[in-house]
């Protein structure tokens, strides 16, 4: 069935508000799509030129937030996408130096560098500080999930420790297949 026919059918059953509440039906009849798409393009171009530095920074931070959200959802873990690497991207998005950020977070410069370079694990305290520092755009859970994802990966890979520790266990439950 064509889009307009479906729209007519929906109008017989529902009010306009009820339709709008559950659908986005494109205009196909009266609107010249090419012209409208061109108008949107022109407007987009103008808005890009008008964006303030602050808007650009906020936009980058939210972009980073959703990159974290999507990465955390993924099954796989990457050493290129750790808390440290996202923290580095965060600092770069703000356009501030590591020295400035370490002061703003009340964190020793060396400690910050070690976390960025994955030589030291971040704490939950730092996650809370970063939430506040990002104007709550990247929340404490977003940061914490990055730590958890790495820990889970390391846990699954530590075969030696698993073997060693499990040697110490006796009288374990037997589960039949």
């Amino acid at each position: 069935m064509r889009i307009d026919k479906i729209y007519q059918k929906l109008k017989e059953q529902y009010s306009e508000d009820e339709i709008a509440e559950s659908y986005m039906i494109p205009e196909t009849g009266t609107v010249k799509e090419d012209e409208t798409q061109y108008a949107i393009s022109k407007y987009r171009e103008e808005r890009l030129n008008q964006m303030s530095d602050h808007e650009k920074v906020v936009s980058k931070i939210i972009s980073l937030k959703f990159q974290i959200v999507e990465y955390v959802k993924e099954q796989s873990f990457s050493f290129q996408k750790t808390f440290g690497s996202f923290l580095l991207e965060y600092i770069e998005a703000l356009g501030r130096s590591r020295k400035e950020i370490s002061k703003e977070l009340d964190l020793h410069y060396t400690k910050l560098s070690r976390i960025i370079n994955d030589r030291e694990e971040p704490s939950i305290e730092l996650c809370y500080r970063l939430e506040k520092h990002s104007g709550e755009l990247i929340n404490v859970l977003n940061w914490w999930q990055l730590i958890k994802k790495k820990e889970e990966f390391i846990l699954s890979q530590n075969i030696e420790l698993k073997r060693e520790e499990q040697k110490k266990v006796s009288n374990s439950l037997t589960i039949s297949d």
Partner: protein
Amino acid sequence: MQLFNRKKDDWIEAKIEKATQEDFALVKSSDEFFFDWTKERKRMVFKMLEVSKGNILGLISVTDFPEELRLHINLLESSKSNVGKNKIIDGIAGSLIAYVVSKAFEKGYNGFVSLIPKTNLIEFYIKMYGFIRVGNALIIEGEQSIKLIKKYYKS
């Protein structure tokens, strides 16, 4: 994400994923959707699933305009059980739109999303979601996009 089930007076867990070829066949054979979603299969289509049952609650078709840094919504449909006064689950459309807006942030588009809806529906989208009018089209970006995400897609 959580959506409100009006019949059970409780919240349900839902998630949004890319639709697969199997989904298009499933949607076509089900009685829950009016539109022919197989026509959208070459576009980017996302489905919203009810986590506990695995059923599709809604679909949204999107086109990426990377040179303009924007996403364009082509079509959105909630399943029939979730339309009108007797609908079971609230907020399907809003959550799908907010998800696309989050994608527009993730891609570095400052949450810029456009659509060209039926003229009679324009006012509703402006009031409900904070879109603004550009000729016959509607757009959302920046702060309004952040507000929309906070309302419909907490993450």
